[in-house]
């Protein structure tokens, strides 16, 4: 009898414990006027780390905005983040966006990191008329006449052009003119769009020969053959796009093993995550450069300090910086629209021209304005270089936090 009573008591306690979250939900649910932002990024699969970093940036901006009284034009409305896992395929990313935007009223969205995912996710956002912000690079994202897509990064082809200009100039200044170049990387969308103009016209126009051109489908089984070619041809610069972390580590380890000294010029922010230091050590990374759409600039020390303190990350990079800026842009648009309605916010974003405040100061050249295609006006690539285990902005010179070193160690 006692035992039965004991079992009944345990059952009730367990039942209550299980039901508690459900019972509490109405009490904790956000008030109706809150502004909801969807964040669709990979939170599982091989790109999950990038999704995590993006989430950190968005959460930091939301904490700052809500902590300072929310959106004033909406009576102090708070911003709420609704995250959805884009996983590791376009199908998963699209279905995550459909779930996130379709289930409740979402005022704006951010995502989905990988260009191929963003192409799919922005189609959903366009159909459901929700303004969508992305850091993805591929040109095609804003070549489809969409009204609701806002691309904050310089597009890949423009990055290639600008980065090459910067590099040729720096190489000349260092008395190391570029005559031979190598193109080495995977065939993901952003890398393809960066390499295509280089291969087809830009390098030829500068009188530079392509001596190695090797592209693979991730994962890479072994990097020996590629690095062997680099050793044999000794290019003056290696354009490098290995977005999959294990592939990139293999290539870098082989470069060290084979003693290749050609300067490495990465294409994307994947090359400046803290995991690189932990996996291969700072010595192997020293002086490797990469082109990114955003990176902490001169005068942003306070922002970086707050980010490091909040997250425990050793430094801040493009991914959290961009989502931080995107949340602030949405906040500014909501202030002007005086509404949480996605269409009203879209109209406000289209008219936005910010030159001060956290959003504008986060992204070079300090201005937030989008053209009729949804591309950010004035967005230009930044060159970041690993120096003693930390990536610093080294070009353009007026935004740099360190001086660029041309030669590899």
């Amino acid at each position, binding site marked *: 009898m006692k035992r039965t009573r004991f079992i009944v008591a345990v059952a009730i306690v367990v039942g209550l414990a299980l039901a508690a979250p459900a019972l509490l939900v109405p009490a904790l649910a956000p008030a109706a006027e809150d502004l909801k932002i969807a964040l669709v990024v990979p939170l599982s699969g091989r790109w999950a*780390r990038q999704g995590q970093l993006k989430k950190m940036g968005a959460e930091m901006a939301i904490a700052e905005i809500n902590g300072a009284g929310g959106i004033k034009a909406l009576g102090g409305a708070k911003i709420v983040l609704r995250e959805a896992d884009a996983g590791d395929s376009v199908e998963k990313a699209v279905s995550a966006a459909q779930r996130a935007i379709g289930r409740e009223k979402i005022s704006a969205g951010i995502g989905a990191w990988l260009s191929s995912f963003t192409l799919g996710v922005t189609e959903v956002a366009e159909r459901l008329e929700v303004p969508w912000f992305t850091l993805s690079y591929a040109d095609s994202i804003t070549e489809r006449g969409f009204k609701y897509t806002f691309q904050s990064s310089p597009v890949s082809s423009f990055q290639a052009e600008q980065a090459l200009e910067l590099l040729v100039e720096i190489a000349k200044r260092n008395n190391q003119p570029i005559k031979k170049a190598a193109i080495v990387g995977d065939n993901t969308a952003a890398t393809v769009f960066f390499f295509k103009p280089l291969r087809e016209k830009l390098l030829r126009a500068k009188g530079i020969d392509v001596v190695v051109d090797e592209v693979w*489908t991730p994962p890479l089984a072994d990097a*020996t053959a590629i690095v*062997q070619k680099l050793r044999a041809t000794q290019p003056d610069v290696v354009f490098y796009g290995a977005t999959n972390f*294990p592939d990139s580590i293999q290539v870098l380890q*082989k470069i060290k093993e*084979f003693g290749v000294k050609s300067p490495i010029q990465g294409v994307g922010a994947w090359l400046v995550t803290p*995991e690189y230091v932990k996996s291969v050590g700072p010595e192997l990374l020293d002086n490797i450069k990469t082109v990114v759409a955003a990176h902490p600039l001169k005068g942003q020390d306070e922002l970086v300090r707050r980010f490091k303190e909040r997250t425990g990350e050793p430094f801040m990079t493009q991914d959290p910086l961009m989502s931080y800026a995107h949340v602030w842009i949405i906040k500014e648009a909501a202030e002007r629209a005086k509404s949480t309605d996605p269409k009203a916010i879209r109209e406000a974003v289209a008219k936005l021209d910010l030159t001060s405040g956290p959003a504008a100061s986060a992204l070079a050249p300090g201005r937030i304005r989008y053209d009729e295609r949804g591309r950010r006006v004035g967005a230009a690539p930044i060159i970041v270089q690993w120096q003693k285990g930390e990536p610093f902005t080294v070009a353009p010179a007026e935004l740099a936090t360190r001086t660029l070193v041309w030669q590899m160690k």
Partner: protein
Amino acid sequence: MSIGDLLQYVVTGLLVGGVYALMSIGLALIFGVMRVVNFAQGDFMMLGMYVTYFLATGYGVDPLLGALVVIPPFFLLGLGVHRALLSRVTGGGDPQRLMDAQLILTLGLSLIITNATTMLLTPMPRGIKTAYATQAFAVGPVLFNQARSYAFLMALLLAGAVYVFLTRTDVGKALRAAADEPEAAGYQGIDVRAMHGLAFGVGIALVAAAGGLLATYHPIEPTVAVNFIVLMFVAVVLGGLGSIPGAFAGGLVIGLVQSLTLLVLPFQLQNVGVFIAFLLVLYLRPQGLFGQRLRAV
């Protein structure tokens, strides 16, 4: 292309293939004895990589030694998983239903292990920094990457140990008997279920050791298995389903073909060579390189 370059491609292929080979023999053993296609095999390899990583970063254990240290705990883990889960879907019963249940079970196990690891350890990639990952032994113009050379030798050693165990010990012979003719083995007093457990334990321990060796030069993340599981299956079928020497040879062949394919095809088609070789073997020798042809009576 010089002879030196060609030799480099061959050496690279064989060194990569050595670890594929060790990964594959565990799978072959489990299939050979239990007739179970273990989709979670790659996930146990991933767990082996993580344990080696934590031993290296937490206790300073060199990953080459770590690869041996993981063998006993993963053997026990394999025994436990067999007893708790797989023993319920192996043995007597309708073979078709059992096979369905095994597929669902191992696939489910794989999903659970990957996602639980992502939740517990985060998706952040980790790597063990070893000096030998970026150093090489130079033999004339050919470079032998040190990490891969050590991993290759260890793989050879472990595969040799398994071979001796299976052919020279009573338990090994009993295991093979249970694989070849379970019913007759039962009549001879061999506990077939215990043999299944043993095979699963050894199979998991081997793949965990392969994971430990892989961790000497390959980054670790919860989804790392995806990159290898297909190659493991190809190696096992290529070598002859269930054959241990066959799976070992299959692994080496895959590494070699992957590397030599680059002499004629661009990088983007690196695995095309592997699958062409696979189809050729299936066409010319359907029983696999080391498999035995079964004749209908």
